[in-house]
């Protein structure tokens, strides 16, 4: 019977100690502990979500980087192409100009040559005339006496000249 009869003193002390324990633990243990746990959970959730966000941003960044790289490559290719074209054009132009110049030079050279030839021919004719005159003078001086021989000689001379 003693076993199932609650003692008055025990009820009193248990109530007192339990209430004190409840109050003290609530104030100094449970509230700080529960708050710390909640804070930590919040912090973990925050950290996870911001990590996700960072990952997303990273992805975006990587994507835009790749885009930028591709653009740059394109640009480089374009520039190179352009440069090649310009180079070819310059070379072409240069060649054209050079050949034109060469043509001009050749033409003027030919002109010169012709002119020189003409001049030479003229001089030659003049020389020939002089020589003919010299010859004629000498013939005249020697053969004037014989009209037949004179004529023959003159003919010979003439044919020589025509030959020239």
């Amino acid at each position, binding site marked *: 019977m003693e076993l199932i009869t609650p003692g008055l*003193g*025990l009820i009193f002390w248990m109530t007192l*100690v*339990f209430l004190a324990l409840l109050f003290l*633990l609530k104030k100094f*243990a449970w509230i700080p*502990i*529960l708050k*710390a746990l909640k*804070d930590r959970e919040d912090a973990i959730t925050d950290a996870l979500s911001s990590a996700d966000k960072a990952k997303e941003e990273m992805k975006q960044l990587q994507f835009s980087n790749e885009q930028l790289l591709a653009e740059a490559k394109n640009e480089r290719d374009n520039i190179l192409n352009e440069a090649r074209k310009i180079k070819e054009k310059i070379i072409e132009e240069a060649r054209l100009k050079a050949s034109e110049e060469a043509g001009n030079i050749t033409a003027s050279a030919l002109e010169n040559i012709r002119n020189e030839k003409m001049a030479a021919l003229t001089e030659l004719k003049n020389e020939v005339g002089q020589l003919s005159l010299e010859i004629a003078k000498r013939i005249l001086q020697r053969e004037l006496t014989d009209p037949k021989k004179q004529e023959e000689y003159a003919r010979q001379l003439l044919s020589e000249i025509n030959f020239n």
Partner: protein
Amino acid sequence: MIFFQKMRRQFPVRSRFSLRAVLLIPFFLLFHGLPSEAVTQDNVNLVAANDSVFAKNGETEKKSEAFNPGDMIMEHVTDNHEWHILETGSFKLSIPLPVILYSDGKVYAFCSSRFHNGLSYQGFRLAGKDKIVRMDAIPGSPKVYDFSITKTVLAIMISALLMLLIFISVAKAYARNVNKAPKGMQSMLEPLILFIRDDIAKSSIGEKKYEKYMPYLLTIFFFIFLNNILGLVPIFPGGANVTGNIAVTLVMAVFTFILTSVSGNKHYWIDIVNTPGVPWWLKLPIPLMPVVEIIGIITKPFVLMVRLFANITAGHIIALGFISLIFIFGAMNAALGYGVSVVSVAFMIFMNLLELLVAFIQAYVFTLLSALYFGLATAEPEHH
């Protein structure tokens, strides 16, 4: 034979503050190793003539100190005005505890050792097992109100101090490493705290209102759990049957009842007074259903009280029963006693492991049911 008889007298005393298998084995060896010269005839205790089971030895004793398992077990599981540690022959080691009495408008306070050897003090004496009465106790004399710091009260205070020590240091650990992984004691207790928060409070009371009840639920859970565990420890700060004391469980059940009633909303009380879905003639003119409902709200904490008390006390009684078996058989024959001790020790180890499980389960059940009652009291009416 002589060893065994000596042991028989010593053991019940040890048994009082909880006999546990693990500690028992070294003691056995110790007693076995005593030189036989040390045991004189005076030490041999003989059983009372009226107890036929123990009446094996031809010698007689002046005082009956026969081993009575019922008395031994009851002495252990009930409260006591002193805390027994050890008793060997005439040497008795116990912690005397303060006696505080209120009688006839006066307060008396003295040490319980004043009652040793059946002495009386300031007009009071110990009667029966452990009840303090006035010397002039006749019908009509003033009643004695006993507010002594008994064994159970001291155990409650020790466990309360232990809890304060543990949980305040854990709270400090939380303040110290903010948002970091728990360490040491903190990491041992955090799963339990989270378990109570998530699986007991949140699921029973609901996300919105659980926070208000958390301090109470945590306190009762750890108080019951710690005292259940301490009850299994055979040495001094443990061994008291705190959660197996009906006054202790009564106080906790009353707290749950008061909290439930105070936090009961309109919906909760209307359901009790005017239970929906019940024919009107069960409510008028004789309020049958309201009476049943009111019995129901009282039954709930009552069941809480009895369940914890009965489970823990039963565990202690069974363990002590196994110990008693050794001495009952030992009184018949020493060899038989040694033989039975092996079986008893094995069973006690098993029981202790079971009690460890029960210690947790009972703390869990008490907390869970309290949370469920709070949940019922604060539930919002369902809209159909």
